C-alpha cells in the first residue's frame, strides 16, 4: 500500500467556535479515520483548529470554469445585492 494509491481528502478546519469550517487544503489517507489524524498533524499543529471535517475529494462536484461567464458574470453589475447601503454595528463580526 503506497501513498500513491491512497485517495485524496479535502480538509476543513474550524478555527474557533462560532466560525464556519474553512477549506484549508487536501491530503492523502487510506480512510476517513486516517484522514482525520493526518489533518490534525498537517493542518492544526500550530493551534489552528477546534474541529476538523474531512471529505473525500471525489464526493465534491465542482463548477466548470468554462461556464464562469454564465454562472458568475450576471452578478457583477448587481451592486444592490451587496450589503453596502447600511452600516454594520461593530458587534457583528465575521460578516
Amino acid at each position, binding site marked *: *500500500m503506497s501513498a500513491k494509491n491512497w485517495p485524496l481528502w479535502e480538509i476543513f478546519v474550524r478555527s474557533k467556535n462560532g466560525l464556519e469550517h474553512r477549506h484549508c487544503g487536501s491530503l492523502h489517507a*487510506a480512510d476517513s479515520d*486516517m484522514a482525520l*489524524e*493526518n489533518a*490534525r*498533524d*498537517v493542518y492544526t*499543529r500550530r493551534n489552528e483548529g477546534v474541529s476538523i471535517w474531512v471529505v473525500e475529494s471525489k464526493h465534491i462536484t465542482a463548477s466548470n470554469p468554462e461556464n464562469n461567464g454564465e454562472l458568475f458574470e450576471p452578478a457583477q453589475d448587481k451592486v444592490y445585492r451587496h450589503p453596502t447601503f447600511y452600516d454594520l454595528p461593530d458587534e457583528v463580526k465575521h460578516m
Partner: protein
Amino acid sequence: MKNENLYNYILGIADNSLILGQRMGELCGHGPSLETDIACTNISLDLFGQVRSYFQYASKIAGDGRSEDDIAMLRKEREYKNVLLVEQPNTDFAYTLGRQFLFDVYHLAFLKELQKSTDLTLSAIANKCVKEVSYHERFSSDWVKRLGDGTEESKQKMQDAINDLWAYTDELFHQTDADKVMVIEGIGVDVTKLKDSYYKEVSQVLEEATLQVPESKYFQKGGKQGIHTEHLGYLLNDLQYMQRTYPNMEW
C-alpha cells in the same frame, strides 16, 4: 549532589523521551508519506518539549551550573538511562510504529501515575504531557492495527517488528535504586504495578490487529543502568555532533 536520587530519577524519565524523540526526528524528510512524515516529527517535537521541562528541572536540582543543554548533549553513552526499547533503530515503518506503540502504552500509564506525584514540578509536567502522549498512543496503536490487519506483507512486517521488540518490553518495569527511593518518598511511580495492565492492553491491540502476542520470556535489560545496545552510540553521535564539534554553540 544533595538530591541525587531525584536527579537520577528525572533523567531516567527524560532520557526515554529524548532518545525516542531523536529516533522519530530521524524520519524528518524521510517518512513514507508527507502526512506520516509530519506525524512522526510532531511526535518527536512533543517528546523534545517534554525533555526540556524535565532537564530544566534536573539542571536546577543538580545546581552545579550545568544547563538543560549540557545534560541533554554532553553526557557519555553509559550515563544515559533510557530503556533499550527506545534506542532501537527505524528498521522499517513497522519497527518505527511498533516501537512507538510498545513505548506509548507504557508512557501513558506511567504519566497518569506521575500526575499523582508529591513533587509538584513532576506532576505538573505529567499533566501537560499526558494529553500529548494520549494522542501518540492512539496514533501508534491505530497504525499497528492497520498494518497488522492490512495486507499479507504488512502483517508479516508488523509481526516481525513486534516479535523483535518484545524482548525490550520487560525492562520498562524494572526499578533502579533511585526509583525505589522515589517510590517510598511518594515522588516516583511504582512501575512494577503497571506491568499486568500493560501486557493486557498491548495484547488487546495486537489481537485486534490480528497479530500473535509473542510468548517469548527472554528479555533484554541494562538501559536503565547505562548498559546499552550497539545502536545508542551511533544515535548519540548524531545528537551530540554539533555541541561536540562547536562547544557552547547556540542558535
